[in-house]
């Protein structure tokens, strides 16, 4: 088991380097002179040229990329073009809000999507099933930021239950989390339902019923455990989707997270800030994916046994 985890951890390194390379080179293609941006419109060409040399902007791409990686490993992601404060510091200040939002939303998605999906598969083609599937369909077709606006309209402006903006109390996170979770919840629901429907028709479920297991035991112990496997991978994937959604949702609810940082950085053409922000989001998404994959290995006995067998064989050989 440990071998599998170590293998996955080692495999994440080239992916990280690749992600960095992609984002760094995309940003490198951006038109515009960074030196000009820092010094402002009134700068003389000589000043710009001097600054370019000082910042090493005239070096070839590979040199600049390697230097960026080297500095990044030391925790130095450069300084913001606008505010001149270290980018890393700013991101660490903003990250908790976005992560909090993403985690709450994935929690809501799992705790609603899974049970409703199971229920809807068990009661296939009843009113409950149709209502659940219909709602899920509507949710996947809805832009999450629009759902957020409608929630503000209903719960903040009409009924005044939740505050529409800001991050002052826990209440502020409820509406954004619900709107971020809508897409993933609907996807999870549909996924769980179809996985359950497939499993429920298998022979071993009939065997379990024939043995006289209670319906509850059949569904949760025999069916759900097998149906869960494809669902778990989806949870990991949708964390990334949730992160992307959170970026847009932050604009609706005025949450000072990573998304707002990115949008401001794009507006100001603040390249180091944008590269680092996108990089952090991408790295977090892949790390969560990794964690989910490792969890998957624990849940799936086939994958687990594959590695256990290898271990035993090695022991007998030595």
């Amino acid at each position, binding site marked *: 088991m440990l071998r599998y985890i170590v293998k996955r951890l080692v495999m994440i390194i080239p992916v990280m380097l690749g992600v960095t390379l992609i984002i760094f080179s995309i940003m490198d293609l951006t038109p515009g002179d960074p030196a000009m941006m820092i010094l402002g419109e009134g700068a003389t060409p000589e000043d710009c040229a001097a600054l370019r040399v000082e910042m090493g902007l005239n070096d070839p791409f590979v040199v600049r990329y390697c230097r960026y990686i080297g500095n990044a490993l030391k925790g130095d992601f450069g300084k913001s073009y606008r505010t001149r404060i270290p980018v890393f510091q700013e991101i660490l200040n903003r990250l908790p809000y976005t992560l909090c939002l993403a985690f709450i939303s994935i929690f809501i998605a799992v705790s609603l999507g899974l049970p409703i999906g199971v229920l809807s598969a068990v009661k296939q083609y009843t009113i409950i099933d149709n209502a659940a599937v219909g709602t899920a369909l509507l949710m996947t077709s809805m832009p999450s930021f629009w759902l957020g606006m409608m929630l503000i*309209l209903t719960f903040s402006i009409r009924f005044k239950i939740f505050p529409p903006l800001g991050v002052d109390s826990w209440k502020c996170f409820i509406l954004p989390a619900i709107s971020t979770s809508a897409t993933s919840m609907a996807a999870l629901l549909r996924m769980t339902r179809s996985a359950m429907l497939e499993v429920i028709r298998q022979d071993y479920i009939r065997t379990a019923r024939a043995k006289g297991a209670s319906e509850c035991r059949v569904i949760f112990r025999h069916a759900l455990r097998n149906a869960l496997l494809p669902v778990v991978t989806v949870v990991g994937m949708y964390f990334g989707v949730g992160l992307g959604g959170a970026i847009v949702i932050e604009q609706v609810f005025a949450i000072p997270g990573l998304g707002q940082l990115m949008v401001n950085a794009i507006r100001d053409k603040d390249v180091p800030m944008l590269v680092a922000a996108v990089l952090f989001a991408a790295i977090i998404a892949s790390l969560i994916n990794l964690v989910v994959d490792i969890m998957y290995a624990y849940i799936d006995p086939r994958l687990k046994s594959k590695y256990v067998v290898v271990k035993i064989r090695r022991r007998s050989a030595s």
Partner: protein
Amino acid sequence: MTATETVSASGLQAQERFKKYKKKSQFRTIWNRLKKNRLAMLGLIIFSVILIIVLGADLAFDYEADAIAQHLSQRFKHPSWQHLLGTDQYGRDLLARVIYGGRISLFVGIATICVSLTMGIVIGASAAYYGGWVDNVLMRFTDMFLAIPHTLMALTLVAALGNSMLNLILAMGLSNTPRMSRLVRSAVLGITEQDYVKAARSCGAKDSRIIFRHILPNAIGPILVQATQTVARSVLTISALSFIGLGISEPTPEWGAMLSEAKSQMRYHANLAVAPGVAIITSVLSLTLLGDGLRDALDPRLKN
């Protein structure tokens, strides 16, 4: 006389037998299955209606006068016969803007899928067809791109390329390419070993002819489903990007940009925020229904 009768009878029989055993085209079979799926047909009808409305918008409205020009004396009018959905904060007709917004959203959505289909087919099909190191290199690159969440990728590309409709299409198309190449690769992979591909190769057909004439038509099913779903998702992503101020901006009517404008007026003029949202939901929903129906029609085994 009896002889002619028997001849025509046997001819009729032969014709019927011919009809029975004649191989129906793949599209015919799929279409027949799709026709039976009521939800999918609903999706198809709604989408066609949207397309007709959007394309025929010029019959009822004038783009410059109704959707762009500002009439400040007409601000925030309630719905009336003259303005069916009312007017926005610059006195522009909301209905006209929603309809012209659909033109842009759907055009960008369909253009996006053209870009990612072309790229995805070239990358995915060559990876699957040539295998070996070509496959390895292409798929490792694809994996790296897939590690970046889709919205983030589109956002980064638009930020780098700059705000314009062409750049938006490019950015969206490129960010959808990795997923599409993955799908094309897996669809093509099973077909490269089929006997008819070997037969074509032994006849001396060029690689490009084998891929485009023999392999792709047989792999088109899953690609078509993915394409429909990608258009639906693209409409959502475009509106999200325009909402945060990237992609298409004022005064061009685009659903996301309109919602972004409406946000500040939401407290007193909620209808400005509702109408573009409903338009997005209707078009995405119809495409999703159609995509789901296509998936079921292509693989009836999946339908329970």
